[in-house]
């Protein structure tokens, strides 16, 4: 038989553990753990802080039985900074602006080709393997940065929050295996490498590239912006042929 006062203390503790402050603390703590692991592993590609944090927080809110909606509003403070950080991607680009010379035409053509390939192949592969219509519409935008993925998927009739999740999953995946895959494809030009990663995996891919090389990071950030534009303009056009 447990003393009722112990029970009450436990309830109080649980309430604190589910408070917005605690959820923020878990998120920041998980991120610090991710950074620590990244350092300890000597910067191993598999240890991306965002992946570690999502796993830690996912487990924590499942164990504590916190609704995702509550978690989301508790961490609005963190999500807010995605906007200014996206704006800040202009900085590496500014520092690398000389390298734009002679690359503008290849860059613009490559972005448009990449957006078409990415959208069409996602829809057709999903269809070939028997995904439902709403899933096809949700997968179409996964290469775009999350706000674009959400908005375009909404207009297309998919599942917007799932589109954000897909965009983040592919971003993490790309941050892990992207540079190695570029090596396999024998793409060695730093601008083209950054461009390719930013075009298929937006800010998360860009953050990995920024860690490795400022030129790659700068072009990944630029590719993220240009692809956002290309995908939002091309999806409605391609949808006419695809659906």
């Amino acid at each position: 038989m447990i003393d009722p006062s112990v029970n009450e203390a436990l309830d109080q503790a649980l309430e604190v553990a589910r408070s917005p402050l605690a959820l923020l603390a878990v998120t920041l703590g998980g991120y610090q753990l991710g950074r620590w692991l990244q350092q300890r592993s000597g910067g191993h590609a598999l240890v991306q802080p965002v992946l570690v944090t999502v796993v830690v927080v996912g487990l924590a809110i499942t164990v504590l039985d916190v609704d995702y909606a509550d978690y989301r509003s508790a961490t609005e403070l963190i999500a807010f900074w995605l906007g200014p950080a996206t704006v800040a991607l202009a900085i590496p680009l500014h520092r690398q602006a000389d390298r734009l010379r002679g690359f503008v035409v290849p860059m613009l053509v490559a972005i448009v080709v990449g957006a078409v390939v990415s959208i069409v192949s996602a829809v057709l592969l999903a269809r070939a393997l028997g995904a439902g219509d709403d899933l096809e519409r949700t997968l179409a935008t996964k290469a775009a940065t999350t706000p674009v993925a959400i908005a375009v998927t909404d207009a297309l009739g998919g599942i917007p929050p799932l589109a954000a999740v897909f965009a983040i999953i592919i971003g993490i995946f790309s941050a892990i295996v992207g540079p190695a895959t570029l090596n396999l494809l024998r793409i060695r030009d730093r601008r083209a490498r950054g461009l390719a990663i930013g075009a298929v995996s937006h800010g998360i891919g860009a953050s990995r590239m920024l860690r490795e090389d400022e030129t790659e990071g700068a072009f990944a950030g630029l590719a993220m912006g240009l692809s956002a534009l290309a995908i939002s303009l091309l999806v409605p056009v391609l949808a006419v042929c695809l659906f």
Partner: protein
Amino acid sequence: MIAGLTWLVAFQLAGELVTRVADLPVPGPVVGMLLLFCFLRLRRYDDAGSIVRAGTALLRHLQLFFVPAGVGVVLYLGLIGREALPIGVAMLGSWFLGLAAVGWTAVALERLLGRPRDDLGTA
């Protein structure tokens, strides 16, 4: 630090304003990024300035800011598990094809137009 963050928020705001008024299909921060790029170019902004310091500090933790949206995966674990094959193949396949398409197109056009390359390990 706060001066730099104020500038970044101001450029985001300007971006939101432009997308809303001109009814562009891109998010405000992306337009804000292009506006800030033009500003930094025109001003020949140097590395010691507050925008660069604040922005570099934010970019170092870019991954953190994706966490709140990424945790949304807990809502869809069931669906993703049920449809694992089409989701997995479509995501990986189109990721790979997109990556190769962008990289190869850019490199091939550089070569075709006779532009200098910028290879890893050479500069």
